[in-house]
């Protein structure tokens, strides 16, 4: 009787594990770290990690969609910085109302993304080059706009988006979950989402089915710009300062989260749930290395090795 129960439980656990295959690397990482540091598996630290992950996660959601279409976006970090700077400048220098300033910041990010989309979808230029160019251009814009100096001095309302709480839950986490759900539904349940997969799977076939693939792609890049802008505003609020160089290197982190999460760089398959797992792997790793006080040079080696191991475990468990 007991054995049977055991068997059933075992089977259930295996099934659950199977369903969340992408998470197995993360799971093992969490288990190992909780043995290594007594601080790791505590509620404050867990909240801390998900707050830290939220900014890169929001960027990664947009990146997931771009990569699903078979594209790439290297300009997310610069778009993030630009939007943050614009919002900050509108408030501090131009004295605009917080919400109007945020709106303008979001519009700025969306516009840059929209331009990426036009160049990729309409002018048929390679996404890598287009967004690499946008990466420098938007960074240039940001440096020009800020004259290379941080902008700070925000009011409390603005601070809320990055530093506020809803009960015990930090606002950035709330915003991240909101977008996670929205984009999950968008991808799974709406025609727009299905077309994104279709384009990445076989663009010609999608076009032959009468779908305006160009429009979809432009929308995806614009949405990606929008999400980068959301992150930029949260980061600015959280840091209490718009940094002209913020978001540098985020493109690689975001792409890494997407790919770690099981999305193929050639497009067509992957999920946003995988992406959040990927982003968590990176964040947990950074947190763990800090908690264990690993010295800086060895941190690099450890980080690379663990990422390699995580993706290795994931892919092996998926092959079974």
């Amino acid at each position, binding site marked *: 009787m007991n054995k049977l129960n055991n068997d059933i439980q075992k089977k259930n656990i295996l099934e659950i594990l199977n369903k969340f295959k992408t998470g197995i690397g993360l799971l093992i990482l969490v288990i190992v770290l909780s043995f290594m540091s007594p601080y790791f598996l505590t509620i404050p630290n867990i909240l801390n990690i998900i707050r830290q992950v939220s900014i890169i996660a929001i960027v990664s959601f947009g990146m997931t969609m771009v990569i699903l279409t078979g594209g790439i976006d290297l300009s997310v970090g610069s778009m993030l910085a630009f939007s943050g700077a614009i919002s900050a400048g509108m408030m501090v220098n131009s004295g605009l109302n917080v919400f109007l300033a945020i709106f303008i910041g979001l519009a700025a990010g969306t516009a840059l993304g929209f331009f990426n989309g036009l160049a990729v979808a309409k002018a048929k230029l390679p996404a890598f080059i287009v967004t690499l160019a946008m990466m420098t251009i938007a960074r240039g814009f940001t440096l020009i706009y800020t004259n290379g100096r941080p902008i700070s001095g925000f009011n409390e309302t603005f601070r809320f988006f990055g530093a506020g709480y809803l009960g015990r839950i930090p606002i950035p986490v709330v915003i991240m979950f909101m977008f996670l759900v929205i984009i999950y539904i968008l991808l799974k*349940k709406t025609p727009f989402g*299905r077309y994104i997969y279709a384009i990445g799977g076989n663009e010609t076939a999608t076009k*032959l*089915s*009468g779908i305006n693939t160009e429009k979809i792609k432009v929308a995806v890049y614009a949405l990606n710009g929008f999400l980068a802008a959301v992150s930029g505003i949260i980061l600015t609020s959280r840091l209490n300062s718009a940094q002209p160089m913020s978001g540098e290197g985020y493109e690689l982190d975001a792409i890494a989260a997407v790919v770690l999460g099981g999305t193929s760089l050639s497009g*067509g*398959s992957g999920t946003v749930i995988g992406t959040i797992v990927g982003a968590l792997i990176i964040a947990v790793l950074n947190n763990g290395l800090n908690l264990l006080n690993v010295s800086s040079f060895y941190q690099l080696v450890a980080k690379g090795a663990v990422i390699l191991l995580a993706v290795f475990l994931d892919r092996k468990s998926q092959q079974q």
Partner: protein
Amino acid sequence: MAKETVLEMKNITKTFPGVKALDKVDFSLKKGEVHALVGENGAGKSTLMKVLNGIHPRDEGKIILKGEPVEFENTKEAQKAGLAIIHQELELIPYLNVAENIFLGREDRNGIFINYQKLYQKTEEVLDMLGVDIDPKAQIKDLNIGSQQMVEIAKAVSQNADILVMDEPTSSLTNQEIDILFELIARLKEQEIAIVYISHRLEEVFEICDRVTVLRDGQFVGEVETSNTNEDQLIKMMVGRTIEDRFPEMNFNPTDEILKIENLTVPDEINSASFSLKKGEILGIAGLMGSGRTELAKAIFGVFKEKSGDIYYRGKKIEIKSPADAINNGIYYLSENRKEEGLVLGLSVANNISVSVLKSMLKANTFIDSNAENNLARKYIEDLKIKTPSEKQLVKNLSGGNQQKVVISKLLSTKPEVVIFDEPTRGIDVGAKREIYNLMQELIDDGVAVILISSELPEVLNLSNRIIVMHEKKIMGELDAAEADQEAVMKLATGRRNQ
């Protein structure tokens, strides 16, 4: 029974760089008729239909649909005007499921969401109508090529179009599925839908078509009523000469055993297969779609990592861990799926043909001898009559049938001793088919051992000297080809053993 004409194409001309694919072609279609479009590989059939559907712009000519001249910029406009097309090369999305593929771009919505309930229901309906058992929720990538073909058909049929173009819909189907398709075509005809039917199987043309238009080298050769013509006459129109019999009289000369398979098992794919193969014989493998014929072939060819059982080659036990091992031993497998597994579409004809033998044509032991490479390609272009402006043409620009010939050339270039043909005549015209059969004869005359997997039962029955039949990943039995008939094969293929 003078029906009204729904479509007229006049003087259609289309040139690709270096190729005049269509040269002043006329074509007309009446309501409720099935109109066959036939011609050799590369005659321009697919191109004509692509021009009709707004996929390729035409250089010259007029298209008159229901009395109105039309100018489609893209497929969406063609769809709106009531045209649907089943593409020769499957155009499906690997990671979307069957239902999503069938209704891609035409989903029922529930507000902003896809109404999945309705989507699956409608998919069930279409699939039921086609009489196939495919799970609407299955991902395309997990379906075999035959099922994918049925999905492609379902996709076109579900558009409720007035004009339905079928570009070789049966090339990957088994007899049963073909029967189902023909019943469907009969029903569509009753609904006054006009159908353009492209096929290289002339018996099909006589079975279901009312009229036939023949193209040759991009030119219109003629239009005839099926009732006023016969196969020989059509073939003459297509190839400009007569071809006596569909199948040659094969002469087998089985000598030593060259390959012996014992208890070959691949988890989930092949269940303990055993058989042997002699030099100079053709062993046919028959079975229904999904019976595991392709997997058996691939298992021998070293595609699967996990496998058990023994392979003996010339009496010696050998290990085949990869296709490279197989090819080095003289075994070559011709895939049923030329687009995914056979060709590098972005490389030239010459580069594709030479890829397996590149190391044997070197200058100074290091550099590719491009003269030798081009000569090799030109030899096969001539031998197999591959229609291409030159050996430097990219394979992706060839017609489907000619692509198939390129894969066959690649195989022949390795001078193999055991050849596994998996659906070798898929999409190949009558003349070329006959050439491939002749080629098989030449191969066995040279002492090569041939395994032939084909969904065209007559092919297996007429060309093999022995036939093994598979059912659900197992070998059900072996038949002597001389005595076997369609019925005996089908009995085994559906899982009933002969008493």
